[in-house]
């Protein structure tokens, strides 16, 4: 009989332990690597669902590692926010395995075991970052995530990926070190590393300059890792040239997890009182995020490569979430958290469709997408759903989070942010209809359809698992949209701290 309190630790430990076995199994039987990986992430997924369920029924869960009480040892603290994000991470990681196992066998025939091992470590790192309640533990896990991400990205496009990855390392290390330095300042002023404990101790230090600098460095470090404009320069190349199977999971999860870390630092460590009453920087951060939203949209418009266009959409979406979190009211934060959930699925679907297109067309330039609707009808259907969601058309989920963000901005009287949000929607409309125009309407004049041309127009879909995967995610996008009222009232609102 498994005790109920075991599940929080199982979420992180199973993928970790299985990563070692997957590596070892490679020499025994290559075929066993994938099933074991799936098994590991499934256990983690199930445990996270059970954990979320017990959070819903009995409130915040604490897990003391090594049996030591919190400020002495490390603790896991799971409330609604990270409970939900844990479920999403493990779900996406699991789902991505189903959609891209043939891609992995195609890309890394000889090093499959090692690749899956790295994949598991990446998942472990993300889950660990989200679940932990200790500032330094977060850093260590962040580095596991980043290190496996660097390596996975460097395996992509032979010419460009290593260079993109090395640039990512330089900037990523600066980001992580800034975070570490910020934690050092916090430690020096308070003497503790536990988030709850620090939040308690920081009350007396609101006017300390050292805490202010600690805050700046932590937040800037996290911004670098999440690629907020103008600290985004590493992102487009790194995500564009990553191998398909890794790009699909790194792109949606990495940045969103960092947004989560920012929200956690803001609301669970430094506290609302400090953020909005002592510091007077929220205004400038909202300007910054408005700039990020617009910059991402405009840069996306100027791209020719489909994947690169998507990476700029990510930068634009980061602006949404950061802005929402800094609006300083309930609606804005709700919108930001809802947008984290939605954006994970939207970005995942974007990269799924890019991967499916890439399976047939090697070069993903937009002018190569002609007639793609005839050739790959199912993938294109999924793509249209995602596009609508990103533009923000109901009933897809993108609409609802944008709605909350705009309401929050009106409440906070941040008109620039509202304008940025609306303009970005318009930009996205232009962006996607440019693609639709190319792909839906063939520029070639329709000649008499002889039998040869008809056979040329035959459907050439990506493998079934990829296509079905995309369609399932498309359906999820609509489902989340339809149930977003329930998600907000049951999962997000109880988390929102009092006093906002």
């Amino acid at each position: 009989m498994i005790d109920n309190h075991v599940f929080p630790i199982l979420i992180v430990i199973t993928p970790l332990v299985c990563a070692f076995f997957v590596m070892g199994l490679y020499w025994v039987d290559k075929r066993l690597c994938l099933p074991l990986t799936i098994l590991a992430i499934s256990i983690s997924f199930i445990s996270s669902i059970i954990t979320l369920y017990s959070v819903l029924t009995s409130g915040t869960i604490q897990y003391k590692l090594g049996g030591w009480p919190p400020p002495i040892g490390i603790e896991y603290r799971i409330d609604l926010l990270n409970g939900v994000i844990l479920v999403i991470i493990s779900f996406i990681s699991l789902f991505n395995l189903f959609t891209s196992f043939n891609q992995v066998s195609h890309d890394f025939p000889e090093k499959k075991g090692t690749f899956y091992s790295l994949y598991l470590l990446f998942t472990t790192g993300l889950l660990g970052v989200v679940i932990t309640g200790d500032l330094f533990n977060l850093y260590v896990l962040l580095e596991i995530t980043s290190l496996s991400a660097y390596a996975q990205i460097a395996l992509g496009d032979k010419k460009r990926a290593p260079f993109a990855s090395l640039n990512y390392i330089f900037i990523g290390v600066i980001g992580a070190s800034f975070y570490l330095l910020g934690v050092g300042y916090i430690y020096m002023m308070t003497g503790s590393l536990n988030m709850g404990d620090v939040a308690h101790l920081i009350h007396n230090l609101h006017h300390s300059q050292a805490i202010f600098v600690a805050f700046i460095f932590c937040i800037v470090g996290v911004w670098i890792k999440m690629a907020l404009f103008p600290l985004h320069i590493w992102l487009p190349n790194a995500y564009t040239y990553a191998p398909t199977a890794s790009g699909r999971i790194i792109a949606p999860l990495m940045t969103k997890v960092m947004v989560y870390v920012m929200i956690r630092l803001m609301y669970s460590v430094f506290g609302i009182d400090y953020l909005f009453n002592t510091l007077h920087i929220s205004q400038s951060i909202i300007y910054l995020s408005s700039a990020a939203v617009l910059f991402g949209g405009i840069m996306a418009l100027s791209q020719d490569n489909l994947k690169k266009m998507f990476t700029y959409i990510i930068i634009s979406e980061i602006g949404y979430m950061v802005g929402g979190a800094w609006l300083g009211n309930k609606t804005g934060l709700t919108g930001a958290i809802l947008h984290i959930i939605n954006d994970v699925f939207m970005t995942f679907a974007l990269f799924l469709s890019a991967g499916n297109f890439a399976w047939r067309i090697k070069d993903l330039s937009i002018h190569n997408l002609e007639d793609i609707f005839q050739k790959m009808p199912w993938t294109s259907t999924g793509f249209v759903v995602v596009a609508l969601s990103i533009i923000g058309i109901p009933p897809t989920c993108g609409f609802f989070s944008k709605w909350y963000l705009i309401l929050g901005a009106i409440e906070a009287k941040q008109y620039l942010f509202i304008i940025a949000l609306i303009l970005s929607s318009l930009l996205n409309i232009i962006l996607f209809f440019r693609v639709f125009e190319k792909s839906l309407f063939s520029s070639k004049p329709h000649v008499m359809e002889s039998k040869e041309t008809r056979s040329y127009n035959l459907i050439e879909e990506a493998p079934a698992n990829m296509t079905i995967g995309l369609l399932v995610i498309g359906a999820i996008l609509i489902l989340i949209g339809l149930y977003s009222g329930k998600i907000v009232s049951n999962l997000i609102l109880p988390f929102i701290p009092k006093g906002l």
Partner: protein
Amino acid sequence: MELLIKEIIGKYNYWLYIILMMIGLYAIIAKNNLIKKLVGMNIFQTAIILFYISIGYKKGGTLPIIEIPHGHHTISPESIDISKYINPLPHVLMLTAIVVSVATFGVALAIALKIYKEYNTLEEDEIRMRLRGK
């Protein structure tokens, strides 16, 4: 004036780490050679390690290994003088940070080697020129 000098001398560990850190940061951003950038990255991380270690120091303290009196197997918590031993926590944290920086350095070197195989150069501007030329 005297206060300023006292301030500077009393906290010179912090000045040193800031100077080192800025050297590293400058090298990461401004240098053209990828290996030089890597070295800059290492200096940058080392500066932070130095900062942490200096937090842990106590004047007159010795290394954090409890001296058990001769002939005894254990020592009661009450008889330990806390100010005698320096703070162990920063040392532990930095052991982790050192390991992380070594691991990152190893991976970065591996990637740099891959770049060298592809382009036969490690100068950033040459690589960028070749990427643009394509």
